């Protein structure tokens, strides 16, 4: 029974997160690019998205420090690493290039597949291939 609640909760989290992306305007690649166009005609909206998210998130993650296990049971899988590594920096830098080229990151791209956007579908398929390549040939991120 708890397993079913767990899955329903997972689904609803996906729905809420997707709605947050839609309401904030982050599912429009042009809006992302207008934010990244800091030297041009700049749209600062994404700062407000991040600000709103982190303001609420700080409180939520503070609450987590009072927990020893997840509500649905099981250990907390929260990363504890603090070391700044080359894969972290190089991977994030490459991610940013791709983000700046198309204006899609993983969440909004997957939501856009649900909007019936063919370019989002192609983007997500390419993204999956990129993930497989990394998992298959580069294990550095697991160290």
């Amino acid at each position, binding site marked *: 029974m708890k397993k079913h609640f767990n*899955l329903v909760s*997972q689904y609803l*989290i*996906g*729905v809420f*997160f*997707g*709605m*947050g*992306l839609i309401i904030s*305007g*982050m599912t*429009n*690649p042009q*809006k992302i690019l*207008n934010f990244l166009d800091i030297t*041009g*005609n*700049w*749209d600062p*909206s994404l700062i*407000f*998205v*991040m*600000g709103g*998210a*982190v303001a*609420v998130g700080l409180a*939520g993650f503070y609450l*987590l420090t009072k927990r020893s296990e*997840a*509500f649905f049971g099981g250990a907390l*899988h*929260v*990363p504890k690493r603090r070391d*700044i590594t080359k*894969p*972290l*920096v190089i991977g*994030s830098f*490459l*991610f940013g*290039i*791709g983000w*700046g*080229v*198309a204006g899609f*990151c*993983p969440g909004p791209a997957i939501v856009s597949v*649900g*909007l019936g*956007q063919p370019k989002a579908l192609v983007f997500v398929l390419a*993204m999956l*291939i*990129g993930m*497989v*390549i990394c*998992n298959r040939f*580069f294990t550095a*991120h697991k160290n």
Partner: protein
Amino acid sequence: MTINWLDFTPGPALLGGMILGLTAALYVNLHGRILGISGIVSGLLRREQGDQLWRLALVCGLMTAPFWASILFGITPLQIIDANWLSVICAGLMVGFGATYGSGCTSGHGICGLSRLSPRSLVATGAFMLSGFITVFVIRHVLGGAQ
């Protein structure tokens, strides 16, 4: 730099952002995991882990979010994609590879990481913001216009 007042939407951005933060906060308290979309999706591709079902449920939630947004609130999001097909494919490959190699994306590092004051996520967010700024600068102002 000029401010694009025409497209600037601080209200919906703040509201949407707060929903994202609330969802991420709920997720880690309910399920004990970071709500990082790239990590959740890349786990789908690693069969040996045997935890495909919950990952799939969450991805289905993301994909059906437009349906619920339309039914419940009558919202149909505007989408303008400047990139051509080849650019979309290259971008997808880089985003997929980069997010996995760098252990996270805009949700995992950007929203969750900054919310829990992780130094790694702060560096990662700085790195992808910087390369995003440079990339758009090169595409729009050096190469000139849409690709």
